[in-house]
């Protein structure tokens, strides 16, 4: 019996090795091929640059194109975001710009981005950004996301009367549509995408990978 099973065991071992190899190859986000592109020129969005965090004199600027409904963006915000803020932005090494890129197929993206813009109007964009990403499960699958988004906005401590006025006016819809068109015109094909110096990387980068790219961009100056 044992001898008859030998081909089966060999086949099983081959499947195990092939599977392990595929998983191993998937372990690093932001492969070399995604890093190779050169970022395009400056954006023409009037005075609006995006949501900015960090010192203007930081040696490296990173532009993040993200969609609030995108799970990989949430993964990045949750797993890597805190390290980015503490170790790169707060230390003056990076100036971070968040550009809204609400994707067409994501039903709840636009309300979430608009809610973040409304919170940003009261100086609480980043707080709302974190609420939205850290509580993804509370609103992303809702048929009517406005209510959970409002709860998240309230948690940031903003004036809710002004927030409600802002949301009902829809005054940031034009800007968001413009940002969406702009990102698409720049060739952003997926989210999150990061322009780091003159390099472009896509995917939910881990901190160590991002740090290497920041060091590389700083050294190139």
């Amino acid at each position: 019996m044992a001898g008859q099973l030998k081909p089966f065991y060999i086949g099983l071992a081959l499947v195990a090795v092939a599977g392990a190899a595929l998983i191993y190859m998937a372990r690093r986000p932001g492969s070399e091929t995604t890093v190779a592109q050169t970022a395009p020129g400056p954006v023409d969005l009037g005075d609006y640059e995006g949501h900015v965090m960090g010192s203007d004199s930081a040696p490296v600027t990173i532009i993040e194109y993200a969609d609030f409904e995108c799970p990989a963006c949430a993964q990045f915000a949750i797993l890597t975001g805190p390290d980015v803020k503490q170790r790169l932005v707060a230390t003056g090494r990076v100036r971070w710009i968040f550009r809204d890129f609400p994707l067409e197929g994501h039903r709840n993206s636009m309300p979430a981005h608009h809610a973040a813009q409304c919170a940003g109007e009261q100086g609480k964009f980043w707080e709302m950004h974190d609420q939205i990403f850290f509580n993804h499960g509370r609103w992303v699958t809702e048929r009517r996301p406005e209510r959970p988004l409002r709860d998240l906005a309230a948690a940031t401590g903003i004036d809710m009367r002004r927030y409600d006025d802002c949301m009902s006016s829809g005054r940031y819809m034009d800007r968001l549509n413009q940002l969406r068109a702009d990102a698409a015109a720049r060739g952003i094909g997926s989210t999150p995408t990061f322009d780091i110096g003159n390099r472009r990387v896509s995917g939910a980068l881990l901190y160590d990978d991002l740090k290497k790219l920041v060091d590389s961009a700083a050294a190139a100056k």
Partner: protein
Amino acid sequence: MVSAALALIGLLVSLYLWLWKIGLLGALACGDGACERVQLSPYAQIAGIPVAFFGVVGYLGILVASLAGLQDRLVHRRWPTDAILVLAGIGVAFSGYLTYLEAAVIHAWCRWCIVSAIIIVVIFGAAIAGRMGWERESVSR
């Protein structure tokens, strides 16, 4: 043999989802982001443990029982088949619950989860067939 081969594939799928969940892998090979949506939902973990980890443990148990049942000295013993039956039964019930969540609560279909659900159903079917065959064999002996 069918159970062992399928359990190995199920183990690799679960391992892939679990490693992604704990942040060791890049973007999931899923296409439309539905896998990430399911994996990042509050239902993707129980008591702080990723659901995929339960899959890793379950499939590993089925793989070990399946390989044990192929050994000469155990091939006529009942417990390996019973162990597979119990583990696969729990897996089918658990997968059924998770599939319900995908359909009715999360509104997103994780392809890898569906693959895993199909695998566990086939293993369960194979275990039932194996058990019935074992019963027939016992009667004829």
